[in-house]
């Protein structure tokens, strides 16, 4: 595996089975979305990584220093099984809403990251070397932030970065974020 020292700003997310689909089934469906719609809507929920308050400004700021910002995914066991109808509309600003593009289906999610091709990650990282990059927890160590119900974050490399012997997390998949990076769903 490669160490991920060349990624000093990214979005981290734990991923797994969701809404009655296995993670492999989700991946297969999402790759078909990319073929038909040219992008993937990767649904998510929770209180961290709000599309307007966190993801969009974080990516815009980091793109001043990087060519691409990636979503790095850690596969975990998940039993999330919300029984909610697919979203029919999305919005990048909460004001103007558009129909979900043909070929895209997002189920049981309030928000979605907008992604390009999802590739196998073949990477690993230590959360101790990164910190929250935006929002009220800005500057908090990622290893302390990503706990309990918090399973995703906008992260930047810590000033105290060092190649540590601490626990390395395998990154199973990664995908570049595409404009508008994150959207609201309804």
């Amino acid at each position, binding site marked *: 595996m490669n160490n991920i020292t060349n990624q000093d700003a990214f979005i981290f997310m734990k991923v797994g089975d969701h809404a009655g689909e296995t993670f492999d089934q989700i991946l297969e469906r999402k790759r078909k979305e990319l073929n038909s719609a040219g992008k993937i809507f990767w649904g998510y929920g929770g209180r961290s990584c709000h599309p307007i308050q966190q993801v969009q400004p974080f990516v815009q700021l980091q793109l001043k220093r990087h060519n691409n910002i990636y979503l790095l995914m850690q596969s975990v066991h998940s039993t999330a099984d919300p029984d909610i109808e697919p979203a029919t509309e999305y919005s990048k600003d909460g*004001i103007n809403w558009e129909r979900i593009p043909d070929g895209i289906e997002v189920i049981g999610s309030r928000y979605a990251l907008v992604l390009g091709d999802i590739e196998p990650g073949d990477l690993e990282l230590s959360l101790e070397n990164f910190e929250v990059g935006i*929002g009220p*927890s*800005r500057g*908090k160590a990622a290893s302390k932030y990503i706990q309990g*119900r918090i399973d995703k974050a906008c992260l930047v490399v810590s000033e105290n970065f060092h190649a540590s012997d601490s626990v390395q997390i395998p990154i199973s998949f990664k995908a570049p974020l595409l404009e508008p990076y994150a959207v*609201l769903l309804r």
Partner: protein
Amino acid sequence: MAAIDLRKCLNAISDVITNRPMPLREFDQIYMKAADMLLQVDHVSKKVSNRSCVFVGDGDAIGLCLVHLHSLQLIDDGPSEVLVLDFDERIVNGINTFASNFGISKNIRAELYNVSDPVPEKYWETFNGFYTNPPFGASNKGKSIEVFLRRANELICPGAIGCLVLADHPQYQWTQEVLAVTQSFLINNHFIISEMVPEFHHYHLDDAPDLTSCSIIVKKSFTPNSPYTSLPLSVEELQDFYGEQIPLRVQYVKDKTGGKYPSKDYELIPIKYKSK
């Protein structure tokens, strides 16, 4: 806290809480926890006793708590009147409906107003108390706080007392930087900081559950009244309103129910009767 009937007070706060709309994280609407609301109400009630108070935004509904608990004689002190200005019509309607239901409309009312607009001329330098709990300014160096304070300053008369609720936690470095900037702003605008209760309140904030806020009491010095000069915010001020690269785009949050129609969040599924 002086002797109060804890059960009655918390139940009265509960009346207010169940009347509030769902907070919208898009606008940093993050609600204070219930026990801290009661502590805050008890703390502020003495400061604003018999004062005419304007609340520049009030998602937490502290203004409503103050008036409600005072009218129920659960706290000894309270403002003579409260005007809540908020850009969220759900909050405005919620306050006015609650006030009507509990017979306190003479003491509190709410109006739709966005701080990006000039303050209504009829309210220029009118109130002798204010309260604001603005967006915490985590990544805009407190600019959002300055905007809310500037509007409050335009609404109050010389000698007014004010209360600010601002993020304050020693392990969140940005809160200390924003507090320092805000204190400078206050002093430069002829306010005297008379009291601060540090790390006083907790919030329903999943991604920063330990974040606290402080309560700062200020007094406006006796500067002369001035003619009306309130101006809209500039494009530059709107750009980083909620934080760097997070502009204020919304004029108002529209209440589509008006408090009168069923919520669209749910659907009723009828029983399917089966004949034997």
